[in-house]
């Protein structure tokens, strides 16, 4: 045994020394040749725009006249924009509302569907249905539901039980919650599918054992389902956080950022800089700042949840 180890050590050492011919003969060259197109395409189409964006954020350009280097002026402009604080707060507010009210919905939905013994495929389909409706069509439809008149759809329905009429999108205090309500409806289905898939990997013996021990449905959910879903929940939470910080379609189509900037988000601001103002420098500068922030958030989140998920 000792002999073998002693003999193996020098071999391992020799192998560490790089030999190009051997490497090529051993398939290394083929691997590189195979990878090159993919890497190039990825670098050009994926990293290219990222780097281009970074460069643009230090330039003044309309992409027709030659670009001028303007140093940090795009950054100082977007940071000095009085609307930035409000847009950041709005984005954070949306993220918070979506986390508190929107995040648990798909989990509950998934657990409920999972508990069903019959017709679960049907409920699966029903839960997923909103995700099939194209967002633009769904938003236009909901805009119609949110009609602020007493004769509006939601207001009429709520009127039957003596509530409202509510201004929905037409008041600063209710515009963002209205958008969150829609976003929850639209997003719950596709997220629930992921949870349902994760739930199907939970071993049924655990439930059976718990049942034998006299655990009711709530204790089973609390002590078996949620711990088993923990890693999926953490990943979904991170994805949702990143997603909510990039919210654009909903405020763009529902309110255009109004009323009085109550639904103006960071991404909508970036869009307006670029495509309304034609100020690509300012747009990319704010994008770079957002990317930095999301990067930091992801790192922080990773370290925090790493501790949780292994504990």
């Amino acid at each position, binding site marked *: 045994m000792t002999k073998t180890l002693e003999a193996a050590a020098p071999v391992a050492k020799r192998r560490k020394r790089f030999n190009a011919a051997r490497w090529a003969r051993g398939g290394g060259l083929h691997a590189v040749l195979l990878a090159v197109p993919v890497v190039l395409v990825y670098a050009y189409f994926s990293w290219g725009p990222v780097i281009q964006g970074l460069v643009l954020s230090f330039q003044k350009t309309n992409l*027709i006249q*030659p670009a001028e280097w303007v140093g940090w002026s795009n950054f100082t402009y977007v940071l000095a924009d009085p609307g930035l604080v409000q847009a950041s707060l709005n984005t954070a507010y949306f993220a918070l509302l979506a986390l508190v009210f929107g995040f648990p919905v798909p989990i509950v939905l998934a657990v409920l569907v999972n508990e069903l013994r019959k017709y679960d495929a049907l409920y699966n389909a029903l839960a997923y249905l909103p995700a099939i409706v194209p967002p633009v069509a769904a938003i236009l439809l909901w805009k119609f539901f949110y009609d602020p008149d007493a004769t509006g759809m939601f207001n009429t329905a709520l009127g039957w039980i003596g509530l409202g009429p509510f201004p929905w999108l037409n008041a600063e205090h209710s515009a963002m919650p209205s958008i969150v309500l829609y976003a929850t409806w639209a997003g719950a289905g596709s997220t629930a599918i992921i949870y349902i898939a994760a739930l199907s990997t939970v071993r049924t013996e655990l439930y059976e054992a718990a049942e034998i021990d006299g655990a009711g449905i709530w204790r089973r959910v609390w002590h078996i389902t949620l711990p088993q879903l923990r890693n999926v929940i953490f990943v979904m939470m991170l994805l949702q956080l990143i997603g909510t910080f990039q919210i654009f379609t909903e405020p763009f189509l529902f309110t255009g*950022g109004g009323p009085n900037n109550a639904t103006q988000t960071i991404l909508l601001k970036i869009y307006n800089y670029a495509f309304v103002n034609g100020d690509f420098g300012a747009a990319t500068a704010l994008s770079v700042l957002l990317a930095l922030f999301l990067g930091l958030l992801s790192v922080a989140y990773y370290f925090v949840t790493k501790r949780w998920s292994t504990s």
Partner: protein
Amino acid sequence: MMKLSRRHVLAAGSSGAVLAATAACSDPGANGATEDLDPAADVTISVGDQPTEDKPEELAAFNDRVAEFEAANANITIEPSPEVWEAQTFQAKLAGGTLPTVMGVSLTYSYELIENGQLPNMTPYLDELDLTGDLNPLALDNVKDDDGNVYTIPTGLFSVGIAYNRNVFEQAGLDPDAPPATWDEVRAFAQQIKANVPGVTPYAQMTTNNTGGWMLTTMTYANGGRIQDDAGTESVMGEETIAALQLLHDMRWVDDTMGREFLYDQESVRQAFAGGTIGMVLQAPDAYDTLVRDYGFDPAHFGIGQLPQGGSGANGTLTGGTLKLFDAKATPNQLLAAAKWIKYYDFDKYYDEAVALDDAETNAAAGNPVGLPGLPPVSQEIYDRYLGWIEPHINVPLEQFAGYTSSTLPLIAEPPAGTQQTYAALDPVVQQILTDEHADIAQAVADATEVLNGIIAQAAR
């Protein structure tokens, strides 16, 4: 034959390649940078605003005119494109260089595009075609730089007025032939509509997608004020803007005559108006086209008057229109060909009776409005002669436009610096006044002034 070096003509566009200034200056390649103007040389241009397939008659008429033009100008090949101006995608397409050689875009961009070098200097071509002298001098002022160079051709001009539903007016006991002339009347009429016609928003205001700022600018003009100084160096909003917002506030919160929807933009307010649920709204006469043709609004119910005035009256109204965007990267020969095309397509009807009649007949057959009032792109005498030619084909109820067409209000151009940004920055102000009863109007205007000055500074960098 006139020979112009490209260097003279295209000072602004000569170094157009994206993000590659130094390379482009020395690159005679793709754009033919060293080419001289030669009106007889073979040239291919693309032209936008081709009608789409769902309007077969208009498309056929357009294609016929392309064929006629090509027959008359054997060296020019036209590639029609259905590209139309769209505020949300315009900047991206312009930057990406995917727009045709010439197409129509909102006149709002005029100063910005000239300042940014995104429009070529068209003076030599317009002179060559002898077109400059015939254009409406008022509109021409909007498309010149300080040295008097002309960068584009303005067409489809309009000024803002007040559109109203004649049917609603009648139900409210108002005279449908007497639109409100002052803002006090607008307020009183709105109260009367509210009292007599349930389920109708007496007066609606646009507030989103830059239309809020656009209309606040218009109302400020009506009160005798300005948003920016004439040179576009600073924001000068004052009492007139505050008075406009105060009126909106009072109509919303005191009279409750503005309904419940405060996130209208141009499209949605026209839809609601066509649905018969709006009494009055600020619009230009081109609204008639959309309302009647696209949304099936009864033409008999459409009325439009001049912009109601505040303060001492007769202060003026805001003008707008379309400008022909020529590609700053096109060659001199392409630019000349494009200018020839515009002259042929948009202006020949004002000079040639047969063309005028043909155009009017085609439009009438396609159900398009013929003789829709607006500001002429040519001088008034030429325009009146043209209207005389097409009179038998006019299908628009002109008497319902009388309050608008009889207007003698001064016409005021849009704020010059960062026009769309300026409008965008004012949207939230109008929204705030309409959705927050206790909003501090003076403070909102002061805050907006600060934002506008930031925008002006960024635009002037």
